[in-house]
């Protein structure tokens, strides 16, 4: 009996040890599947190019000499080219699906819905592919090829919408990661400053960081809006290209923000102060009620709150607009009426209560949300999109877990 119990305990320990590693690597595996699907798509495309060349040659031959042998050759070449075309379409859709799976910030229900749609498209393409192969004469081949063409043109719009969404979400995930690092670095600079360290040089890069992050957020907002414009009523290819370009611009600003961050950390390390860049995440939340953040990093209050913000005395607060500040009995400071605010610090507490809450909290620690609203987490292992209610939701910033 004792032996069995010991074995069970050891097995449980092993499961506990392995589980987090598996969780952290889950999406890396899915990214690998995306690259596999992408390679298959490119291979299918090359194969189709060969088949298209043969069809064009057979067509030229038929037009030069319209005999039975050339017609048979042309029919066969047309069927092969069509089969290959359908295959590229199928591989294209497999690739779109794989990328969606490798974008964990897309909510699961939306992901499942998109999977269902693509599976239906694939079944229909396969059916049309079969009808081309079974065509008995040239007229039938052309008719079935036309059907395949029309169907592809029709579903391409939806596939572009899906890819636009994936591009925006992939970019957003990265933006939130950079936000989390920026929060950690800013909190560390503030901590050093509070301890009498000269942080002037580090702070000189802060402006550059904020400017680039602001531009990145703005471009991503434009990309998100543009992604909603990919529709039948507009030039969807043009709308899609704009999403792609805006996402690229967002990325460019993020890379410049990273340069500023690296400069800050470089100065920090040169002067003998290190920093940990792991165990951090971001939460975005909108709604009414109360938010309590305990931890290290930043809380950005993006809009005027009909209520109050109370921060612990060790936090550094930057406000914009007109408002009131009151020092409370325990030393904490209450802010009211400001248009927006950014709170930075190490081991700080931030209590926000009222209506119209719109925040981004980045760093490490926990955030409790109570009332009504929506939230998204971007942690190192979990991406959760949900609603907060009177029962309350507790988010661990580092992992992104919400309970």
């Amino acid at each position: 009996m004792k032996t069995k119990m010991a074995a069970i305990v050891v097995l449980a320990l092993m499961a506990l040890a392995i589980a987090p590693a598996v969780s952290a690597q889950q999406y890396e595996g899915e990214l690998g599947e995306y690259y596999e699907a992408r390679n298959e798509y490119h291979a299918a495309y090359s194969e189709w190019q060969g088949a298209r060349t043969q069809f064009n040659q057979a067509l030229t031959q038929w037009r030069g000499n319209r005999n039975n042998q050339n017609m048979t050759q042309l029919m066969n070449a047309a069927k092969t080219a069509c089969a290959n075309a359908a295959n590229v379409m199928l591989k294209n859709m497999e690739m779109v699906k794989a990328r969606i799976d490798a974008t964990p910030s897309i909510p699961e229900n939306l992901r499942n819905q998109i999977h269902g749609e693509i599976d239906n498209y694939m079944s229909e393409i396969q059916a049309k592919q079969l009808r081309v192969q079974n065509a008995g004469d040239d007229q039938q081949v052309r008719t079935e090829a036309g059907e395949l063409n029309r169907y592809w043109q029709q579903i391409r719009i939806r596939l572009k919408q899906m890819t636009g969404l994936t591009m925006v979400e992939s970019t957003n995930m990265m933006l939130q990661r950079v936000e989390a690092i920026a929060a950690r670095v800013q909190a560390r600079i503030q901590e050093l400053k509070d301890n009498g360290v000269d942080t002037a040089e580090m702070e000189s890069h802060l402006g550059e960081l904020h400017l680039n992050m602001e531009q990145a957020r703005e471009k991503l907002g434009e990309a998100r809006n543009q992604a909603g414009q990919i529709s039948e009523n507009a030039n969807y290819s043009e709308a899609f290209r704009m999403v792609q370009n805006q996402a690229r611009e967002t990325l460019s600003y993020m890379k410049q923000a990273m340069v500023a961050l690296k400069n800050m950390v470089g100065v920090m390390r040169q002067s003998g102060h290190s920093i940990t860049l792991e165990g951090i995440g971001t939460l975005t939340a909108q709604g009414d009620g109360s938010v309590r953040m305990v931890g290290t990093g930043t809380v950005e209050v993006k809009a005027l709150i009909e209520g109050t913000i109370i921060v612990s005395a060790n936090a550094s607060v930057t406000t914009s607009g007109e408002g009131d500040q009151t020092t409370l009995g325990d030393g904490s400071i209450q802010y009211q009426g400001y248009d927006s605010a950014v709170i930075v610090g190490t081991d700080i507490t931030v209590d926000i209560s009222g209506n119209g809450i719109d925040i981004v909290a980045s760093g490490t620690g926990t955030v409790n949300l109570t009332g009504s609203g929506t939230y998204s987490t971007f942690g190192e292992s979990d991406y959760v999109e949900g609603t907060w209610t009177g029962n309350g939701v507790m988010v661990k910033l580092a992992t992104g877990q919400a309970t």
Partner: protein
Amino acid sequence: MNKTLLTVIAVVAIVAVVSVAVYSGMNMTTTSSNGQTTTTTTAADGFAAIDDQLSELETYLNEEELNGDFGTGDIAGDW
């Protein structure tokens, strides 16, 4: 105690210890919070990981569209 069972337990225990060690090594961080000096030991540089992810995103966003109608319009047209 049954020898086979003992061997199984020993193997499982070794795997568990190695797994814990490997996973902990990936994330080991010791930080003092005196505001002056910090000792940090991480297996991976946080910036390097983000740089890799940004490069991956760049590759994805630069993916050019290959597809028009894959020649199906030509096949459906006049021969």
